[in-house]
């Protein structure tokens, strides 16, 4: 289940005085089963990029190929693409509308034309995955739930479609640290359990570093970097130039490298930093 962008370009309001280029010559190949992070400042084109992945937006130039299906081909059924590529927008709780939690989550599978018992089992499965108890919540109105619960119901609504690729646009936006941790852990376990491709759009370098296999860094409509976290954080200078910060510990490591050249500066977790510093302190003691 791969996603491929070839020379993708997207210009908003083309031909009007408000013309604005959001994506410029994007070439990207996302392999199946990976956990990818997408980071970039506001306005870098992240939202536009992910909306091309399920056909919500059409490129002004270039080709999009999803799982072998060329989106510009008239024969491609967009509904099929939307089933395979699930997209959870920011503040997804704002899209809830049904009378009960169960009905809302069933909306997606319902649109796929599935049979009643299939829909029912998918709803149960989805609720289980996001940690919302089926019996307790199925008949409740989505609007009597807490913010965090509403968000999980909204995510369940997309998961119930059993997509091969799950894209989440800042799923932790507006949540407190506890909520953030819970959601990210749930996403990580979903990824491990179902082996689906996950694309996580985030502003937090630290979150992305902790959970992803590869990171796409965007700036002003272009892809600047696409690599593993280790290699990305080696480019601290570039990241700073485009307004992104490396994790605090990486900043620390870079400073310490100037004092002790043996330090590995592309470390980005507290654990790894601890190990590096302990080695450094021992080296200094021995001197």
């Amino acid at each position, binding site marked *: 289940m791969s996603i491929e962008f070839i020379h993708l370009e997207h210009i*908003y309001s083309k031909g009007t005085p408000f013309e604005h280029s959001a994506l410029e010559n994007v070439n990207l190949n996302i392999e199946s089963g990976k956990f990818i992070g997408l980071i970039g400042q506001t306005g870098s084109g992240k939202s536009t990029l992910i909306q091309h992945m399920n056909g919500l937006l059409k490129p002004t130039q270039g080709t999009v190929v999803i799982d072998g299906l060329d989106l510009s081909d008239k024969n491609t059924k967009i509904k099929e693409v*939307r089933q395979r590529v699930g997209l959870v927008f920011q503040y997804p709780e*704002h*899209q809830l509308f049904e009378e009960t939690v169960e009905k809302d989550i069933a*909306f997606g599978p319902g649109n796929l034309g599935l049979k009643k018992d299939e829909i029912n089992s998918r709803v149960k499965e989805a609720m289980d995955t996001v940690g919302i108890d089926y019996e307790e919540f199925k008949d409740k109105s989505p609007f009597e739930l807490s913010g965090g619960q509403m968000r999980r119901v909204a995510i369940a609504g997309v998961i119930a479609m059993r997509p091969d690729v799950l894209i989440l646009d800042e799923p932790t936006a507006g949540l407190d640290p506890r909520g953030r941790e819970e959601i990210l852990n749930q996403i990580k376990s979903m990824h491990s359990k179902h082996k689906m491709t996950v694309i996580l759009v985030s502003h937090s370098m630290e979150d992305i570093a902790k959970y992803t296999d590869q990171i796409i860094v965007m700036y002003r409509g272009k892809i600047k970097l696409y690599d593993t976290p280790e290699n990305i954080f080696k480019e601290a200078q570039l990241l700073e130039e485009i307004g992104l910060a490396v994790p605090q510990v990486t900043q620390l490591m870079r400073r310490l490298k100037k004092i002790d050249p043996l330090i590995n500066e592309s470390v980005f977790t507290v654990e790894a930093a601890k190990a590096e510093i302990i080695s450094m302190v021992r080296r200094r003691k021995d001197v």
Partner: protein
Amino acid sequence: MFKDVTVGQYYPADSVIHRLDPRTKINFTFLYIISLFLITSYTGYLVAVLFLAGIILLSKVPVGYIIRGIKGLIFIIILTVLINLFVTPGTPKFQLWKLVITEEGIHLATFMALRLIFLIMGTSIMTLTTSPIALTDGIEYLLKRIPIVKAYAHELAMMMTIALRFIPTLMEETDKIMKAQKARGADFETGNLLKRAKNLIPLLVPLFIGAFRRADELAIAMEARCYRGGENRTRLKELVYHWRDTYAYMVTIAMIAMIILTRYVNIG
């Protein structure tokens, strides 16, 4: 994309018409519409067209924008023309099956069409040269001078301002919700009228609930800034008449006078 939508088709420019007090423009439009109904001959329309042309020129608004307003209401104009053509009694001129077109009918249809067109042009000029806020301020001021209504003048104006402020925001939100539901397989395009109406529920329900939530939060924020209604409220920009407004009123009166004159003096 939605960030650039202009509401009320305001065309920003720096012209003397733009700089007129909104009250002047509202009053002018009002009196202009009344005078249109006082016209009994084509000479009257000639006078009106001269004044209108002068205003359009002074306003620096491209004529295309004004024509656009007429295009929008072309259906009503055609309807009026047709009704008057076929329903008016008098000396027959043409005949289509059982429908008779009389001379009087042609005359009346043209007259009515012209009245409508001039009406649209005059109102367009006002909305094109007055920003929505200025318009709201002007309306509030004038409403305060009408008995009974004046108790609600401030609230009405406040409602209009808030509505104007949130239109672009709500349009963006509609777009977001549509995309989110489309991502879940919703279809807003296919199906007959009834089906499409039903398919709008996943769009309308979240939109309304969101709007109510906004209203609630906004009300709290307004109270936190000591909003208690219109009593004793002052304004950053008080409406002030200038000399140009006096001239504008004089021109308006001259126009009405000349139009009334054409009822008695006919030049063909």
